[in-house]
C-alpha cells in the first residue's frame, strides 16, 4: 500500500514537473539567466505552500519531519558544485528523470553522469566524512527550534511573503 502510494505520488509529481515546464532546459536556463521567472515563481509558490502547510500539520501533530544536518563549509561547497551541474545540464536530479521520460537524450546522459557522480561520492564518503563534513557540524538545526519558538510564528509570515513575492515577481524580462 505504501509502495503504491509512493508510485502514485511520484507520478503526480513527475506529471506536474512536465506540465509546468520545470523539466525544460530552456525554461531552467532562462531562470538562471534571470530572464524568465516563471519557474522561480513556481518554486517560491511551492515553498510558500510548504512552509505554511508543513508547520500547520506539525502544529496538529501529523507532520513527519525530516531535517537535514548542517555542516557549514561542506554544505556550501556541496551547493556550489550542485549549482554548476544544474546550469550545465539544465536539469536537477528529479527533473532529469522527467525530461528523460519526455524523450530527451541529454537528460539520459545527465542521469548516467549522476549515477557515476553518486557512486564516486559514495566511495569518497569515508574520507569526506572525516574532513569537510565533520567541520562545523551542528546537526539537524531549524530556525524556529534554535530560537525556541513555534515554527508557525516564522513559517506563516514567511510563507505569506513567499506567496506575495511569487505573485509580484514579473514573469520575465525581454530578451
Amino acid at each position, binding site marked *: 500500500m505504501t509502495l503504491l502510494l509512493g508510485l502514485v*505520488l511520484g507520478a503526480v509529481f513527475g*506529471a506536474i514537473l512536465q506540465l509546468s*515546464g520545470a523539466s525544460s532546459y530552456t525554461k531552467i536556463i532562462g531562470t538562471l539567466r534571470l530572464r524568465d521567472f516563471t519557474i522561480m515563481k*513556481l518554486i517560491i509558490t511551492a515553498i510558500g505552500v*510548504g512552509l505554511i502547510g508543513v508547520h500547520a*500539520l506539525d502544529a496538529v501533530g501529523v507532520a513527519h519531519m525530516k531535517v537535514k544536518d548542517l555542516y557549514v563549509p561542506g554544505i556550501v561547497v556541496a551547493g556550489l558544485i550542485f549549482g554548476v551541474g*544544474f546550469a550545465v545540464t539544465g536539469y536537477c536530479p528529479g527533473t532529469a528523470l522527467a525530461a528523460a521520460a519526455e524523450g*530527451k537524450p541529454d537528460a539520459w546522459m545527465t542521469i548516467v553522469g549522476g549515477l557515476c*557522480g553518486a557512486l564516486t561520492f559514495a566511495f569518497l564518503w569515508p574520507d569526506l566524512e572525516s574532513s569537510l563534513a565533520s567541520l562545523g557540524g551542528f546537526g539537524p538545526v531549524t530556525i524556529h527550534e*534554535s530560537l525556541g519558538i513555534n515554527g508557525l510564528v516564522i513559517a506563516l509570515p514567511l510563507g505569506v511573503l513567499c506567496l506575495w513575492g511569487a505573485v509580484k515577481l514579473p514573469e520575465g524580462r525581454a530578451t
Partner: protein
Amino acid sequence: MRQQVTDHKKAIIPILPWWAGGLAVGVVLLVAVALIQPIGVSTQYVVLDGVLLHSLFPEAAENSPYLKAAGKEWTLATYEFLFVVGIPIGAFLAATVTNRFSMRVVPSIWAERFGPAPVKRLIWSFVGGFLLLFGARFGGGCTSGHMISGVSQLAVSSFAFSAALFASAILTARWLYPEREER
C-alpha cells in the same frame, strides 16, 4: 524540418501556469509529509548504484559503508524508490497525452551558442550530471529534498544549500551565456 522546429518550440511552453504548478508541488509535499515523510530524489541514485553494484560485485558494495547505509537490504522495493520511479512514469504520461514527447538532443539555445553537435551536448550533460549528484549527495539533498522540503521545514542547512546552489548556478549560466553589451 520547419514543422519539427515549431514542435520543439511548442513543447517548451508550459501547459500549467506557474501558480498551478507551484500549488500542486506544495500539495504533493504536504500529502507526503502528512502520510510518510518529506519528498526527496537524490538518495535514490545512490540506492540504485548500491543495488546494481551489489548484484555485480557484492563485496565491493558491502565494503562501502555509505552504499550499505543507503541500500538497506539491497532492495528497490521501498516507498522512496517507487516515488522516484513514479516521476518518469508521470512525466511520460503527461508528455504523451499533451503531445509534447520530443527526442531532441540539443536544446535550441544551446545549439545557437555552442553549435548543433549532439556529442558535445551529451558529453557536457554527463559531466554536469556527475557534478549534480556529487553535490547533491555531499549536501544531503537536491532541489526537492533541500529547497522544497528542507526550506519548508525551516532547516538551516537547506537555506545554506539553496543559497549556494543559486549563486553558483546563476554565475555558471552567466558564464555559459554571456550577456550582450548592447540591450
